[in-house]
């Protein structure tokens, strides 16, 4: 069920109406029913994968808790009769069993994801390496599998770490995994922030519904007016990259910057707006990413929930592991204090961004995209002392506006270089496009009309520019802690709704009819 379909709007409408008619106890059950109906609309077979992940994660969560309970019981029973060594032995054994339980659940669930999503990629590479001719396997790919797998595994790791006690009700847990607004494209939720909201009492408030719909409307505007329009230019150039060079490629890459942001953040707005209608607040996934002053900062603002997931469950365990600690000491001995401190972090970052690349898709270009980001962050970490010295030497006022603007522009440029890999049809195509951007560069393309044969007309470019300007100012205000949503909420009802009316009618008036079916880009992960 695509978020831009009539089906979804009707489904949401019915879900919200019934939700507020039900008593508190019934509300979460209704949400669970809706979530499964929503997922079942994409097929029964794919739903089985969701059920398997839910049950396996729930079960292992309980087993982890049981193991702690068992240890406590043993220690209690044998209180006073155990030596410190024996106590340690029991604790180690218990820890070991928990580790195996966790590892088993992680391997099982990530294994499902890996096989369904990456098996054919592995076969392609195997065939190339060993000159074999194994055929692709036509696997079902459940919608949103990356999102719900990451969300479930995050829960399990937290339970293992005793961050919170596991959920004891399978159905309540099933709702956490399958909550329909966020199921297809995130954000990747955390149990402690999300789950309790489902079971609180939610009463009908028109203002809340209004705010939810307002956010959805804004998301649809970004998607249909900007992202789908920019997609015309982007697809034309990226899919026929041999025919284009210079300014045309730059226009397409900039177009992709806009398309991806408007599509993904627009999707998030729809998701969060829909969730707000149920009075369930989801984690923010975007924080004005194009105002980032470094690549590292960019990843703190772009797809935030994936970044924090990676940080909490991969980066910290890896960078703080015993092996990394030993490696840090080793490098400190031979390369000095700074390198000794930073290199383990850099390596952990490279691993993280390799995984981020793999998460984006089963292709080398995505791995290159991830590593590109990881390398820049690693390099900037390693070169930080030199950078500080240069700043001091040139007396650069680092807090001045021009310097911040320079950093923003520099980061935006670096981000755009990364898009070559992300959107290019292959790794080699991305490299060819980079070369052609430089070799075929000519400013005459700006005036000879060649930009107008890329699928967009003058009015299309005007809509894109105007729309980008609107997004820019909204983001700029947000960056200065001024929320446009809040400001609108404080306006008189007539003005508010007149604004909604304008926004609503601007979608069919200015919206592009999508070139491909399938709705939001990130709904395919």
């Amino acid at each position, binding site marked *: 069920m695509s978020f831009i379909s*009539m089906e979804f709007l009707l489904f949401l409408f019915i879900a919200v109406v019934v939700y507020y008619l039900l008593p508190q106890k019934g509300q979460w059950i209704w949400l669970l029913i809706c979530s499964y109906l929503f997922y079942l609309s994409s097929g029964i077979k794919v739903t089985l994968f969701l059920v398997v992940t839910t049950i396996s994660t729930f079960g292992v969560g309980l087993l982890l808790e049981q193991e702690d309970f068992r240890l406590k019981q043993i220690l209690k029973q044998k209180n006073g009769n155990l030596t410190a060594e024996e106590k340690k032995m029991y604790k180690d054994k218990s820890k070991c069993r928990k580790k195996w339980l966790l590892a088993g659940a992680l391997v099982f669930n990530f294994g499902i994801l890996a096989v369904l999503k990456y098996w054919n990629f592995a076969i392609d590479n195997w065939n190339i390496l060993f000159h074999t001719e194994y055929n692709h396997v036509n696997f079902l790919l459940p919608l949103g599998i990356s999102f719900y797998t990451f969300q479930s595994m995050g829960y399990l790791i937290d339970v293992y770490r005793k961050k919170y006690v596991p959920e004891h009700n399978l159905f309540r847990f099933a709702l956490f995994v399958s909550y329909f607004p966020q199921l297809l494209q995130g954000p990747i939720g955390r149990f402690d922030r999300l789950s309790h909201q489902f079971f609180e009492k939610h009463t009908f408030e028109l203002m809340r519904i209004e705010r939810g719909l307002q956010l959805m409307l804004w998301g649809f505007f970004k998607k249909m007016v900007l992202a789908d329009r920019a997609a015309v230019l982007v697809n034309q150039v990226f899919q026929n990259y041999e025919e284009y060079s210079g300014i045309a490629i730059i226009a397409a890459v900039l177009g992709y910057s806009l398309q991806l942001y408007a599509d993904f953040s627009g999707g998030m707005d729809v998701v969060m707006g829909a969730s707000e209608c149920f009075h369930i607040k989801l984690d923010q996934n975007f924080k004005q990413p194009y105002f980032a002053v470094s690549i590292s900062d960019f990843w703190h603002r772009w797809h935030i929930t994936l970044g924090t997931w990676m940080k909490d469950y991969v980066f910290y365990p890896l960078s703080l592991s015993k092996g990394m600690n030993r490696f840090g000491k080793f490098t400190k001995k031979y390369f000095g204090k700074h390198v000794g401190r930073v290199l383990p972090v850099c390596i952990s970052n490279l691993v993280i961004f390799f995984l981020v690349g793999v998460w984006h898709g089963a292709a080398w270009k995505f791995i290159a995209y991830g590593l590109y980001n990881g390398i820049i962050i690693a390099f900037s970490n390693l070169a930080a002392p030199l950078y500080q010295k240069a700043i001091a030497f040139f007396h650069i006022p680092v807090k001045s506006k021009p310097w911040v603007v320079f950093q923003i522009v520099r980061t935006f440029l670096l981000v755009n270089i990364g898009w070559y890999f992300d959107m290019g049809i292959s790794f080699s195509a991305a490299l060819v496009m980079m070369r052609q951007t430089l070799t075929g560069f000519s400013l005459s393309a700006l005036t000879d009309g060649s930009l107008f044969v890329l699928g967009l007309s003058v009015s299309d470019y005007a809509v894109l520019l105007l729309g980008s300007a609107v997004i820019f100012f909204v983001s700029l205000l947000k960056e200065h802690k001024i929320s446009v949503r809040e400001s609108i909420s404080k306006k008189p009802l007539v003005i508010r709704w007149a604004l909604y009316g304008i926004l609503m009618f601007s979608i*069919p*008036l200015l919206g592009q009819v999508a070139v491909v079916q399938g709705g939001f880009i990130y709904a395919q992960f």
Partner: protein
Amino acid sequence: MRNFKRKPVILAIVFVILCIAVTAILNYILIPSNVVRINLHYLTNGEKYDTVFLGTSHGQYGIDPQTVDSVTGENSLNLCMADEYLDDTYYLLKLVCETNQPDKIIYELDPSYWMLSQHEGATQIFFYKEFPFSMAKLEYFFGKIMELDFRSTLAPWGYYRNEYKNIGKNVTVKMSEAYKTYDPSVLEIDAGHYGGKGFIYRDRIEGEDKGEFNNVPFDRAAIQEKAVSYFEKIVTYCENKGIELIVITTPVPEETTSAFADSYENAHQYFQEWMDAYGLTYLDFNHVRSEVLSRSMEGYWDYDGHMDGIRAEEFSKVLGTIIEKMNDGNFEYEEYFSEE
């Protein structure tokens, strides 16, 4: 619902009503009059039809029901229309059966419609929009329209937003008596006219540029699951209703079949196998004997195989004769078709 406040809710309802009103006005002034509306009026005007043709633009330009009827002595209606994909055909069939009890459905099969996806936008809702309120419309909505971009249902005017220059004309036409009485004179048809009962008569223009080959080469692998599934639904539906289903492919110019011989032959074999499996009669008029019907280029206005009015009359006579012979049980395939 404890925090229920009446005033904002009333205002919200007023807002929704206002939006609906604006949308209705925009639909009225921007969406032009179209042939589907006229065709569906023929279907629902109370007249009873023995045979209904369903299919694509090839049938729309090639089958004149009045000529067919002059041979068979029956009453038929042509609901073949441009951009009518198999899902549209299925719901049209349902509407046909809701308003009529035809003995025969003749489905005009264009292989490209089995391979291509319908363009997003106006054409996806073209037929649905003109359906009279009926169970078929409801099923159409839940079966197809619900899955489309919500703009299709909530703001179809958006697909015609660039036609703002025609607002004056649209309003004049829609307010005219001719429009209200479903007079086909309100239609604007290039080099032709509405020939009645769904048929469009295209004039033969001497020396006309017939464009280039633009047919979609047949590829079994490109056949869409959706097309197959809807065709199966059509077959089952006709079976359940006791309606005879006949499948035809209208003839395309010899030049086209020669240029894409393999493609046409593969398509013929594929669909012949299919129809045999379903026990359906399949008449591929690309295999029609030359002495029965000419496929010379002069009778077409493009290489894709859209017939002009003169050729359409000839084809409709042949089709009518075959239908009549089938009705009488003395149709001999070899008399009209060859396997070459």
